[in-house]
């Protein structure tokens, strides 16, 4: 039986090849699958060479922002004055996203290997994998793999006899969306509250414990070993010039075949929804898709024919984000869906910035009132105005995250709001 669903459009090469195969969690089996070849090769390379390969591959950060990974690594100080750290961001908390979870639970050694290769590239002496608290069972799987890798000499002192040392610690968060923001993650990891802080200083200047730090997403790091083994041109055979490679999709909502699919970047979003996932079940029509996780602007069913690249979705007025489309069929109440999203962000706001602390919950309250039939038309003006106030005024982008879906729903589904309001001024 294949891993929940598979599809011929899939490129199951890099990340998902061993999804659904519990034996892949074991180091010995993993080695027979070609595991740790990337690390072996990286140990023979100069750190700068590793960075160059990754830079040339065009790999972009898979946490949502799509920042070029190799470029990020070059921000680390060239002259090492103290410890450098690598943080692997496994605080996957965006509603709709469940790709890092699959990597953690099926191919933990792939992640460990990616971490080590990246650590070597940035001269890090310690890797921290920050896993969200809710991923407790998968953390156990990862921990077992870490223990095995330590015992076999893949982590620790004098790795594979190369003379290079690197430690790895798995850290479980206490469950906060905002711990996925890189400065919030570092604060949490350093023992503080998961609160983002103002930049500068950037993590590469002052990160975990005040030392230069790079924070990379799980999926990003998991792609690194194969890139190092096969080279940047090999990776660029998939995807587009600006968005090369493959991407692990997390498709959820009203779909015939929801789940994870590793697809080439650039396939049409429409194909992902209808071909790969089989469209909405029971012959229902699709009303809207939130393409990149709950913090992205929603697209109507008519707007899905866009290439699924960072630049393609941006042109369509949304964002690829974590490539986690949430599909809403014709029965879904858009106001209720937006209220649910706003509730989430109000609950997850760390509470530092006034706009986010008070604004997200105000938005949720207004939406709830409209949802239960107590709305007024002036509420829509207030919501539009709040979209302005919540954009670009805060330390991090959590407040902006509620604005993207909200504003697009107001623009595209105003009729649904007005129907619930029923003409009250």
């Amino acid at each position, binding site marked *: 039986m294949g891993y929940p669903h598979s599809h011929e459009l899939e490129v199951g090469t890099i990340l998902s090849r061993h999804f659904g195969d519990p034996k892949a969690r074991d180091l010995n089996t993993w080695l027979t699958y070609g595991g740790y070849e990337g690390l072996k090769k990286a140990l023979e390379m100069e750190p700068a060479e590793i960075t160059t390969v990754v830079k040339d591959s065009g790999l972009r950060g898979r946490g949502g922002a799509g920042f070029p990974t190799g470029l990020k690594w070059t921000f680390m100080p060239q002259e090492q004055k103290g410890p450098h750290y690598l943080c692997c961001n496994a605080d996957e908390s965006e509603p709709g996203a469940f790709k890092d979870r699959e990597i953690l639970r099926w191919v933990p050694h792939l992640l460990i290997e990616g971490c080590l290769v990246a650590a070597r590239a940035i001269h890090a002496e310690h890797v921290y994998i920050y896993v969200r608290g809710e991923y407790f069972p998968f953390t156990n799987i990862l921990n077992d793999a870490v223990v095995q890798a330590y015992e076999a000499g893949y982590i620790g002192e004098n790795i594979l006899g190369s003379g290079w040392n690197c430690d790895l610690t798995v850290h479980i968060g206490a469950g*906060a969306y905002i711990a996925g923001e890189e400065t919030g993650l570092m604060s949490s990891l350093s023992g503080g*509250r998961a*609160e983002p*802080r*103002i930049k500068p200083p950037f993590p590469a200047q002052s990160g975990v414990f005040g030392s230069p730090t790079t924070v990379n997403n799980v999926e990003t790091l998991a792609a690194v070993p194969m890139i190092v083994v096969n080279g940047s041109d090999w990776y660029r055979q998939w995807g587009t010039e600006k968005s090369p490679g493959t991407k692990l999709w997390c498709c959820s909502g009203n779909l015939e075949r929801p789940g994870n699919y590793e697809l080439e970047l650039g396939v049409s979003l429409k194909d992902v929804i209808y071909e790969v996932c089989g469209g909405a079940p029971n012959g229902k029509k699709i009303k809207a898709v939130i393409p990149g996780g709950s913090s992205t602007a929603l697209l109507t069913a008519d707007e899905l024919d866009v290439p699924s690249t960072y630049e393609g979705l941006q042109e369509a007025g949304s964002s690829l984000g974590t490539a986690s489309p949430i599909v809403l069929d014709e029965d879904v109440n858009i106001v209720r869906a937006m209220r649910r999203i706003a509730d989430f962000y*109000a*609950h*997850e*706001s*760390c*509470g*530092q*910035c*006034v*706009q986010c*602390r*008070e*604004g*997200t*919950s*105000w938005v949720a*309250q*207004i939406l709830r*009132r409209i949802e239960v039939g107590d709305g*007024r038309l*002036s*509420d829509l003006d*207030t919501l539009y105005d709040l979209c302005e*106030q919540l954009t*670009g*005024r*805060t*330390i991090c982008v959590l407040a902006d995250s509620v604005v993207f879906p909200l504003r697009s729903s107001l623009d595209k589904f105003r009729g649904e709001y007005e129907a619930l309001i029923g003409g009250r001024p």
Partner: protein
Amino acid sequence: MNETTSEAINLTIDGVEVTVPKGTTVLQAAERAGVVVPHYCYHPGIPSRPAQCRMCLVEIEGQPKLQPSCVLSATDGMSILTQSDTAKEARRSVIEFLLLNHPIDCPICDAAGQCMLQDYAFETHQLESRSHEAKLVLGRDRIADDILYFADRCILCTRCVRFMRDVAGDEALLVAQRGHKAYIDTFPGKDLENEFRGNIVDVCPVGALVHEDFLFKPRSWDMDSAPSVCPGCSNGCNIDIAVKENQIVRVKPRYNADVNGFWMCDHGRKHLVMANRGSRIDLPLIRRHGELEAVHWGEALEWLSTNLPEGGSGHAVVSAFDATESLAAVRALLGRIGIEGGGYRLSRGHEAELGGFPQLKLRAERAPNAAGAELFGFGETDGLPEVSDGDTLVVVGDRLADAPADYGEGAGFFLYIGSHLSDAARNATAILPATTFAEMEGTFVNHEGRVQRFHQALVPPGVARPTWMILRRLLGLGHGEVTMLEARDAFAVAASESGRLAGLNWDEVGLKGVNPGGTAAPVAK
């Protein structure tokens, strides 16, 4: 903290050109240009700057995104707009957000009239809310023995949390919960017991943290205030005394970079509010035919100048709570009547240092002017002098509160000058009503020899007068009638008689004090 350097840069703030050292923040540069950028979380005395209140957002001309001026470094040629439409709208919306769940209970709030939220709410003309939602109620909490926390008024600027962490070095407060349900609390099982905790009330820009001593008492517009110096110990923290109906109702630290920064200790605050208590002497009393009899000043001083014995065995007790001017006058009087020496008693207590501002320390010597007393030849004594029958005894300022009730009974002549009438003081031959430091102007000399002026905060009871005024008048009787009415004159005389303070100018001492250099007379440890 931004490090400033000597390199100068030029920028304009709302069209006003200003030159500042490189490394200055835009908010500080604006201050120099005379522009106040509203802010909550930034406090000049607290090193960390989270830039989280988002109130100080300003527009950099040519850039679309507003920036927090508290952390934004000023750069050469920058043009800052604090009054652009975007900047004003951003501030307006911050206030609107802050008021969403705020109880708007200004009529019963201690901070009303001195609240940064109230001020800006009026400034942005937000007298009505767009919100139709029910307010979230978080309630209130006793956050320390003497401090209450009104969570609904709290704007979560975290100044209190960061004062405790960054300045007091005692991480006793935290933000609990998150988002709009967040509030300030102590750690489970740990109380806020720090001896500098009162400062969290001062740094609170709204009415969320309130001293219980002050709760529901005066309205801020009903209070007068006078700059003064804390008499709680020898540190000499600069303070403002707030007064309502001639009672000290509150004490707040007054900024002095060299002495106490923005802070003071709780011992000082409590000590001063206690100053309202006790039974006061409000008329001169002289003993005739064995009975104390109230007389007017003229008669009392005439009588004293006739009857105060000169020569013979005598003792003097002064107080390290008295002003330098008074201590100088006492020394002059003792010289006239031939009493040498004399001393003061000093109570001592534990010490406590403010980690983030070590100049500020609750010092062991619990009196403000022991160094001033030393300047005029008074030394610290362990107890009160033994008084033999027929001796002359002069007690100035020391309340004799702990002296036996018959102390001084056998003295040939017992002159008592002070503010409070204890049992022992009732044995005096003459009792002259003196003011407390809060009822007069004068100077204290702190532990490091710094001379600092305090101003009059209260009206003295009855006809009480500053000791220096009483004694200079007495000394002048029959010797050219010196009438001294101003503290500046008394200071000039005292300075000329002291040696170390010679040449110091009253105006130069000003509100911040000066250290004339040289060695401060050491106070015995």
